[in-house]
C-alpha cells in the first residue's frame, strides 16, 4: 500500500486570504480523504516561516510523496489546487 499523502497548510491567522483558505480546505475535504492535513499558523511558528522561506500565504504544501509541491492562494480555485497537488477527483 502506498504511504498516505501529507499536506501542510501554512497560514497567517487573521488575514482574509488565510481565513478563506481555512474554509477552502473544507471544500477539498472529499479529495483529502486519503491524505493527512496539518495546519500551521505562522504567527505562532515564525521560525518555521523562516526555515521554509515562506513569503506568500496561504501556502498549501504537498510534503509527501516527493517531490514537494506548493500552491499559494486562498484555495478558491479547487480544480487548480487538485491538479497542482495531484489530488484525486472529488467523488460525486
Amino acid at each position, binding site marked *: 500500500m502506498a504511504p498516505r499523502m501529507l499536506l501542510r497548510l501554512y497560514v*497567517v491567522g487573521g488575514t482574509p486570504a488565510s481565513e478563506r483558505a481555512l474554509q477552502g480546505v473544507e471544500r477539498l475535504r472529499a479529495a483529502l480523504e486519503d491524505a493527512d492535513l496539518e495546519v500551521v499558523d505562522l504567527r505562532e511558528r515564525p521560525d518555521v516561516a523562516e526555515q521554509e*522561506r515562506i*513569503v*506568500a500565504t496561504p*501556502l498549501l504544501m504537498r510534503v509527501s510523496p516527493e517531490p514537494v509541491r*506548493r500552491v499559494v*492562494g486562498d484555495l*478558491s480555485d479547487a480544480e487548480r489546487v487538485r491538479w497542482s497537488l495531484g489530488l484525486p477527483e472529488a467523488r460525486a
Partner: protein
Amino acid sequence: MSAEYEIARVASGVDGMDVVLGGGLPQRRLTLVTGTAGSGKTLAAVQFLASGIEQRGEPGVFVTFEERPGAIRRNFRSFGWDVAAWEEAGQWSFVDASPHVEDDTVIAGDYDLASLVVRVKHAVAESGARRVALDSTGSLVDQFANAVAARRALFQVAAELQEMGVTALMTAERGEDYGPITRHGFEEFVADNVVVLRNTLEVEKRRRTVEVLKLRGGAHLKGEQLFTIRTGRGMVVIPQETVSLDYDPSGKRLSSGLPELDAMAGGGYFDKSLVLVTGAAGTGKSLLSTHFIAGGASNGERTLLHSFEESRGQLLRNAARWGLDLGAMEEDGTLRVVATLPESASLEDHLLAMKSEIAEFKPDRVAIDSLTALQRVATAKTFREYLLGLSFHIKEHAMIGMVTAATEDVGGGPVTGELHLSTVCDAIVVLQYIARGAEVARAIAVLKMRGSDHAKALREYTVDDHGMHIGEPLAVRGWSRLPEVL
C-alpha cells in the same frame, strides 16, 4: 527649528554622508535609497548594517528580496566585512525572501505577504536588532507580479519596524537617473526620507552622486554630492562644503616667498585663502609655487606639495636651478612632496588621498601643481565640485593653499572662467609673456585679492639662479595679443 521637532540621528556608516544628511540617518525612521542598476544600493544597505556592528555593536537584520545570502556573504568580503562571522556571533541575521527556483509555486487564488511581516518581526525580536536593511523592493514586486500585495506588505513592515523602534534602510530601483523616483512609484510613500544614488557617464567619465531628496523634519545639504566606492571602506561621500562661501578671512598676511610680490598684494597673501597662479606654459607657475613653499619654510611653516605634472626628482632639480633646496626642506620636515599621475585615479579619489595626506602631515600650506593636469581626468561639473571641496578643506585644515593652472593662449586666455576658478579662488596671480618691440619678456600681475586693496599693475620679472626678480610697474600700451609695452 524648535527642539521638539528635532529628530535624533544615527551614524550612517558612510564617510561624509552624515554631513550631507545633516547629522546622520533619522533614528527609528525608514529611509528609502533609490537608484538605477549599479548605482550602489545593495552596498549602501550592507554598509549600513556593517557599520552598526563594527562601530556601535548594534545587531542588524538584512532582508533580501534579490541576491541570495550566499552571494552577499561572498560579494562584500573585499570591503573587509565578514558577514558569515557576524552571523555566527548573532550580530547579523538574514531574512531570505529571494526567489528560489526549487520553491516553484503555483498560484491559485488570492494571497498576501503577511508571512514576510511575521519573519521580519521575528528576526528583529530574536537578534535584538537596532538596524534593518531591505534590498530591494522592486525584486519583491517582480517576484510575485502583484504590486498590491507587495505594497501592502511593505507598508506593514514599515509600520512594524517603527513600532519596534529600529532604524531602517530600504532600497528601490528606478529606471533612469533623472526620472520618476522609483520604478513602481509607491516606495517613496512608505518611507519618511528619500535618498537618491546616481551613476552617470558624462563625457566618458563615471560620475557617482548621492542626493537627499526628502528628509522629514530635518536639515540637510541640498543637491548632488559626489561619492566613490573604495575597497576596504565602501561608499565614501565627498560633501560639497558650500560653507566656504561664508568664510571670514582673518586679517593675517602670509609671505608669498617674494618681498616684491608681497608688496604688490598689499602685504602678502591672506591667511585662510586659496591663491590661483595662472599663465601660459613656461611663464613660471612652478617657480612661483616653489617660492611659496620656501616662503613658508623660512617662517617654520610646513607645506604639502601635490604635483600632478612633474616627478619628485624633476621638481627638486628645477628648484635647485633657482637656488632653492627642496630636498633640505623635506629633510627638516617643512616640506612633503607627493607626486601622482592624474590618470591614476578619479578626481574624487585624488581629493580623498589629499585629505588623508593633510590629516597625516598637518601642513600649514598646501600647493597643487597643476589643476590643468587634473582637469583632464574629470568632467566640468565634477571638477567644480572638486575645487569647492578642496578649497574648503584647505581653509579648514591649513592656513593657505596655492593652485596653478595653465592658459592655452600665450597672451593669457580666459582659463579662469572655463575652470570656474575665479569664483572659488580668493586671489589670482597672472604670469604672462609681454612683447617689447621684437623682444618677448615675462611679467606678473595680481589680478584679484578678495577683501583688499592692491596694486594691479603689470611688472616685468626675470629669473636667475636666485629665482624670480620682479621689477617696476610697466606702462602698458595695449592688450591686443601680447601686451605691448613701452
